[in-house]
């Protein structure tokens, strides 16, 4: 086997119980078979996270993992994956994953580590400092405990130098909120899963990484070798060309107004992922992926700066172009909204669960007159147009005061305690709230598109739309880099990708292929990693035929690591990772019954055309899905033959017993 380029070559293992750190060699076979990131995490979890581990016990582990492309001039490669037993999962926590952009992953690699495995639990608050040539220290964090995530990061930069990149938990994580995040910078977070609470249960306040980027002397550690630098440059240019026709001039693309109102505050495009190749919000979203400077908030009397991306800006206002029920529309002054958004990041609260879950549920509940403020125990009007309402709820949640004690347990559990009727709670399944399901913050997602969403939701072990499902909506609605496709173009594209035009047509036919393809690609996206908001690049406004280049991932992987795979061969690795994750779930007791738990949610009428899920047809679709996956339609287990075909013999042996 040839040399493996791109990796830093070591994994850091930290045991907080014994306060010892071990530096392990990167398992080269794992690296080849599972690439990195999400794939490596699944492989390690299979060995180390046996079923029945409580998320808050010292047996749970936090596995942070970068990929071979991280820290290298590969588009959108600066992402870090995280895995462990997730407390947010409902009703019983299981193994799942999260993912974050920012600078943490690249800097970790420049310090010589591909990943960190955190084990055990400390008695006193500590933080981890990784610096220079694989130097690792577990330091006292008693002074940091209680601080918000921004203050913690600033303090760590003050102690260890400006170049320090850190991730930290806030008060929500310290109080074991099941919706606690691990934050980095002013907008990035390992958001979903409640891993902030796992860090809190381990009394680990933060991880700070100080590479030698600001040192005068350059040394050998953490210098990442690249198999073919020249090709990588060409691929970068190719990506730029496909996404935005080459270098863009930002001021030509800044949206000037929102809903007829001029945006008066200074802002600029912001890359939420290290090595992000484009202007994400170009022409489509008004506020995502921006950096704002000194916005004067009249309500909070501060000048606020920070970054907004993904769901965070929904604090500023929420309105989908489709039929969002009038009572869940709101809009705040952007300056006040930014303060609220920053507050949720400072406290370390999962915005998907908070805005897209319990907040929506409360607004619906109040408007229908089912519950008053008094019933819910809130001493101010439930008014989404009032920034103080948001701030109050966030503080109550993070510090577990009053009703906040329930909200901190996540939307699914909170709604149960508060007695909000199920049909008003945007909880899809397993503790995650609506995303790509046509009935909440993604209310614009029409029938039949959310059928693919339902399949993804049924078969994944978390909200699939943060790292898997973006491609499909991008195709059907157009994206920041390609406007809405013409009907003919759309048909050609889906036919080329999934072999059937029915993938985007009315009805339940042809929906399995896009789901499986996206799941396998999603595994690659967070293993290589690439940014799932741009990749796979399936369509482009800047090519003659309107097609993108879905084999770009394989080309990037080859240019960095020196391993030449075709897109199909790489997809096979994606399939292997997805099946391994499924096997972990199966070992934890997951069956087809758990998959079908999505059905009640999708049987609610969707927000645009009031269409409900046809249970019969959907169950048939599931049959079809399991068959295409090589899984048993009765149980939802991957079949032995499939596991062996994917090189998962050790999994087959454990699941099916040692006998042939």
């Amino acid at each position, binding site marked *: 086997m040839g040399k493996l380029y791109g990796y830093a070559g070591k994994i850091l293992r930290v045991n907080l119980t014994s306060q010892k750190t071990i530096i392990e060699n990167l398992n080269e076979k794992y690296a080849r078979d599972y690439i990195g990131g999400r794939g490596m995490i699944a492989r390690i979890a299979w060995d180390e996270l046996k079923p029945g581990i409580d998320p808050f016990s010292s047996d749970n582990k936090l596995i942070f993992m970068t990929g071979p492309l991280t820290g290298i001039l590969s588009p959108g490669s600066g992402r870090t994956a995280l895995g462990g037993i997730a407390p947010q999962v409902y009703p019983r926590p299981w193994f799942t994953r999260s993912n974050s952009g920012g600078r943490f992953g690249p800097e970790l690699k420049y310090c010589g580590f591909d990943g960190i495995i955190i084990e055990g639990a400390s008695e006193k608050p500590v933080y981890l400092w990784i610096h220079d040539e694989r130097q690792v220290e577990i330091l006292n964090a008693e002074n940091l405990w209680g601080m918000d995530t921004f203050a913690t990061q600033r303090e760590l930069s003050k102690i260890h130098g400006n170049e320090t990149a850190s991730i930290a938990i806030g008060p929500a994580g310290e109080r074991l909120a099941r919706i606690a995040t691990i934050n980095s910078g002013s907008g990035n977070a390992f958001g979903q899963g409640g891993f902030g609470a796992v860090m809190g249960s381990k009394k680990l306040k933060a991880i700070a990484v100080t590479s030698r980027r600001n040192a005068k002397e350059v040394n050998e550690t953490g210098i*990442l070798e690249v198999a073919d630098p020249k090709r990588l440059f060409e691929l970068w240019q190719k990506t730029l060309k496909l996404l935005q026709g080459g270098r863009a001039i930002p001021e030509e693309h800044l949206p000037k107004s929102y809903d007829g109102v001029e945006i008066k505050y200074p802002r600029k495009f912001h890359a939420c992922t290290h090595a992000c190749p484009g202007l994400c919000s170009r022409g489509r979203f008004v506020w995502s992926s921006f950096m704002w400077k000194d916005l004067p908030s009249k309500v909070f009397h501060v000048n606020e700066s920070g970054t907004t991306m993904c769901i965070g800006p929904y604090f500023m206002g929420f309105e989908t172009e489709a039929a969002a029920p009038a009572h869940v529309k709101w809009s705040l002054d952007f300056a006040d909204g930014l303060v609220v958004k920053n507050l949720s990041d400072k406290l370390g609260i999962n915005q998907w669960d908070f805005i897209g879950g319990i907040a929506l549920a409360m607004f619906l509940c109040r408007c229908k007159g089912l519950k008053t403020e008094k019933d819910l125990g809130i001493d101010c009007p439930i008014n989404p147009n009032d920034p103080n309402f948001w701030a109050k709820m966030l503080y109550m949640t993070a510090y577990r005061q009053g009703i906040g004690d329930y909200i901190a347990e996540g939307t699914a559990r909170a709604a149960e305690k508060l007695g909000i009727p199920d049909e008003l709670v945007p909880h899809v399944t397993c503790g995650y709230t609506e995303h790509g399901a046509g009935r909440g913050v993604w209310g614009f997602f029409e029938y039949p598109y959310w059928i693919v969403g339902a399949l993804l939701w049924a078969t994944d072990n978390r909200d699939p739309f943060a790292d898997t499902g973006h491609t499909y909506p991008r195709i059907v609605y157009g994206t920041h880099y390609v406007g809405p496709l013409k009907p003919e173009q759309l048909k050609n594209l889906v036919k080329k990708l999934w072999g059937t035009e029915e993938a985007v047509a009315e009805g339940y036919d042809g929906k399995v292929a896009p789901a499986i393809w996206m799941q396998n690609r999603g595994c690659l996206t967070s293993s290589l990693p690439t940014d799932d908001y741009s990749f796979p690049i399936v369509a482009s406004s800047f090519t003659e035929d309107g097609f993108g280049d879905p084999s770009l991932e394989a080309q990037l992987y080859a240019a960095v690591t020196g391993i030449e795979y075709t897109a199909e061969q790489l997809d096979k690795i994606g399939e292997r990772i997805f099946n391994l994750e499924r096997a972990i779930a199966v070992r934890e007791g997951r069956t087809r019954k758990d998959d079908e738990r999505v059905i009640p949610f999708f049987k609610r009428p969707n927000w645009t055309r009031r269409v409900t899920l046809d249970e019969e047809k959907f169950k048939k679709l599931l049959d079809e899905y399991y068959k295409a996956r090589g899984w048993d339609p009765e149980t939802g287990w991957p079949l032995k033959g499939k596991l062996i075909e994917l090189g998962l013999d050790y999994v087959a042996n454990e699941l099916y017993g040692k006998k042939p």
Partner: protein
Amino acid sequence: MKASSKADVKTVPVKQSAFLKYHPERCTGCGACELACALYHEGKENLALSRIHLIYDPFAGDHKAEVCVQCYSPGCYYACPANAVQIDPDTGARYIDEEKCIGCGSCERACPLMPEKLIIRYKIVDGKKKYFKCDLCRGRPEGPACVEVCPASALELVRR
């Protein structure tokens, strides 16, 4: 070396240089410039190998880039006792010839922007210090790598 012979070299008028202009209002902070710089010059990746430095402050709402301004009167050029700091005949870039560099650090100490900004730093090659700085990607037909990869046109090569 006699003082006179040294003076012969250094009194030659120094060609004015092109320079990199940075537009902070366009910069997205993606770091592609740093990655491209290290990758082009060293064929490897680590931000410590980059000649351009991005200062991130997500809390202040700003990015800054630090890169050699290619001074009109380059202190590094005049200070170098080994004639390792040279002037590129095409762009005018003040660059360090790695072969000639004796690792004394005179250039770094003479730089008017250091030590506040990391303009000149060194690596160890075969046990010897070798200084490096921005050379505007001397000899690269497409021009500076950082300019070429920037998705937001935040860097621009201004010729003089």
